[in-house]
């Protein structure tokens, strides 16, 4: 005990400061009920259009507290309006600070349909945020799932190793193998905690209806999930097609790579035979490499990012299908039991 104490106590301020620099990994996202309601309201009002908004809160140790949020206006392509959007963001932050809302940006939220959120844009936005905020998180809400009585909230972040790769734009097979990164490792899902202030707790307890059945129970016990399944399958099929396209790109790449290699070999053999002939004739041998020859030009390897993202999407649809199917199994058995 004494030895450990003597080890830890005489740390200089600098040491402490530098030790603080090492951020503990983000373990939990703690969301206020207010934020959940706000996100749901915004996403639902504009559904099926996809919307985004900013999350405000505090970064406390390994917990990221999300205490407020505000919606972004629907984005337009026009540049002028984009500048307007930045102004809007500043104005809103200023206003919220005046009523003592935490005004650190900790990330953003966005709505999605059937979980098709894993797009390149998401990663780009993530990288943009990440430049300014060390720890940021993206909350995904799926209004289509909430009709089934579920609460489809997800907190995501990009994994560190993926971010490294993305920064260097290295999505060649070799690098990926080096890092041992597969499509599963792009996104990390962070568990969500929900908090409410004591005041809200008091109000909600008072206001809770007497009825033992709430809307979400009705939604959950709804038997028809066909539409949801159907659109899920449709999306799944689209994704499969995309993936096949990507695969074909790779096949093409490999084919041209091997063709190039055989061409190179042929050229080399020809050159060697020529050199042998020249040697026999007593002439200087020609160099064995010729960078100007088109045969030696490197064929750029296509990026694997897109296929990774598609894989992610497919996995997501599969999960959803599994989940909903599981739910409907229990519903069917319940109905059977009721009928008997």
């Amino acid at each position, binding site marked *: 005990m004494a030895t450990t104490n003597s080890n830890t106590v005489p740390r200089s301020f600098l040491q402490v400061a530098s030790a603080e620099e090492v951020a503990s990994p983000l373990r939990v996202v703690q969301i206020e*009920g207010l934020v959940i*309601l706000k996100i749901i309201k915004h996403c639902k009002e504009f559904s099926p259009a996809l919307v985004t908004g900013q999350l405000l809160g505090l970064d406390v140790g390994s917990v990221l507290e999300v205490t407020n949020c505000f919606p*972004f206006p*629907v984005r337009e392509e026009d540049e002028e309006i984009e500048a307007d959007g930045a102004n809007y963001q500043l104005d809103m932050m200023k206003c919220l600070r005046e009523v003592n809302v935490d005004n650190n940006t900790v990330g953003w939220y966005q709505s999605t349909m059937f979980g098709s959120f894993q797009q390149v844009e998401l990663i780009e936005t993530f990288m943009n945020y990440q430049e300014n905020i060390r720890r940021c998180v993206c909350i995904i809400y799926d209004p289509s799932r909430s009709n089934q009585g579920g*609460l489809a909230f997800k907190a995501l972040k990009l994994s560190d190793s993926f971010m490294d790769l993305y920064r260097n734009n290295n999505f060649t097979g070799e690098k990926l193998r080096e890092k041992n990164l597969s*499509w599963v490792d792009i996104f990390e899902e962070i568990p*969500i905690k929900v908090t409410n*202030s004591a005041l809200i707790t008091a109000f909600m307890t008072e206001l809770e209806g007497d009825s033992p059945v709430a809307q979400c129970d009705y939604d959950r016990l709804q038997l028809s999930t066909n539409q949801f399944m159907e659109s899920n399958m449709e999306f799944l099929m689209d994704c499969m097609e995309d993936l096949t396209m990507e695969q074909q790109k790779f096949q093409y790449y490999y084919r041209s790579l091997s063709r190039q290699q055989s061409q190179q070999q042929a050229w080399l053999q020809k050159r060697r035979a020529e050199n042998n002939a020249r040697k026999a004739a007593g002439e200087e041998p020609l160099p064995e490499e010729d960078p100007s020859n088109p045969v030696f030009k490197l064929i750029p390897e296509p990026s694997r990012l897109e296929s990774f993202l598609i894989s992610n999407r497919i996995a997501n649809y599969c999960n959803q299908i599994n*989940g909903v199917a599981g739910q409907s199994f229990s519903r069917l058995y319940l109905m059977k039991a009721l009928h008997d």
Partner: protein
Amino acid sequence: MAAGLNRDKPGSQIKANIYSQAHIQLKTKSNLNQFILESKLSNNPSSLCSLKILIIHQRMAAAIEHTVLQFAPSSAKISAKLHPLVLFNICDCYVRRRDQAERVIGTLLGSVLPDGTVDIRNSYAVPHNEFSDEVALDIDYHHNMLLSHQKVNPKEVIVGWYSTGLGVTGGSALIHEFYSREVPNPVHLTVDTGFRNGESTIRAYITVNLCLGDRQLAAQFQEIPLDFRMVEAERVGFDLLKSTMVDKLPTDLEGMEVSMHRLLALIDDVYLYVDNVVEGRVEPDNEIGRFIADTVASLPKFSPQAFDKLVNDNLQDRLLLVYLASITRTQLSLAEKLNTAAQIL
């Protein structure tokens, strides 16, 4: 005529008498729970006096002419719908209020439905300063925030304002007047964050103007029915919004389990009730009986074979989907393995 005479000698015994009569008359006339007669001129005794006299005048003139002093025609059936988000917002603002501030004031956004119901869907706090009986709202802030909100959702307009505290207080009339200039017939929502009655008191008011010709004399706050739109909260689940800390969001299957438990409990309740009625322990209630009969009748009548077929078909469909999903996943991992293998070669 008589009013004209009385005005000349204020402070007489008869005046107080008349005042109380007028008071009672107003009260009975509008049949209200909350009655506040607020004159912005009320710190001026002579004008107070003239107000009283005007009321008397009205009484006397009432027999002859109805138009002299009147409450603006009140749309009798106005009610308000309150979405839980607004309550959350208000509570959050209250928790984050400034030092020494006793209450928070803010703007309510929403829309007025065709049937006159005010749908309160959103809100934001507006900073204010309060000295004894003066209230200064930050109007710039209010406008900035309004602009920002309108950018996101132009359909939401100002419908009123809120304040924490129990019931209407002194400064309310002034703020209400300000909001009346922004929107006709604003709603005033009060949320008692102190739980002074020992329960949550959330009330909505509108004002009815008391005027003489073109002159507005006073505003009267009239409570209107308030409907809590808890459907959204129910969709999220009260369990999530009621407790101060929930460690993780319920998954689909967990939610399902909870719902099934509730259903089971309900069925048990019904059983118990029916048993009790049959055995004569409980007085039968025809209405409940009819409900139960309706519910039982709503189950479609199938032959067992047809039902089995239906269930099995459905099960098989789902199984097929699950199978397809797993095959896709297998395919994915296989493709990945092959891709990496191709690279090594």
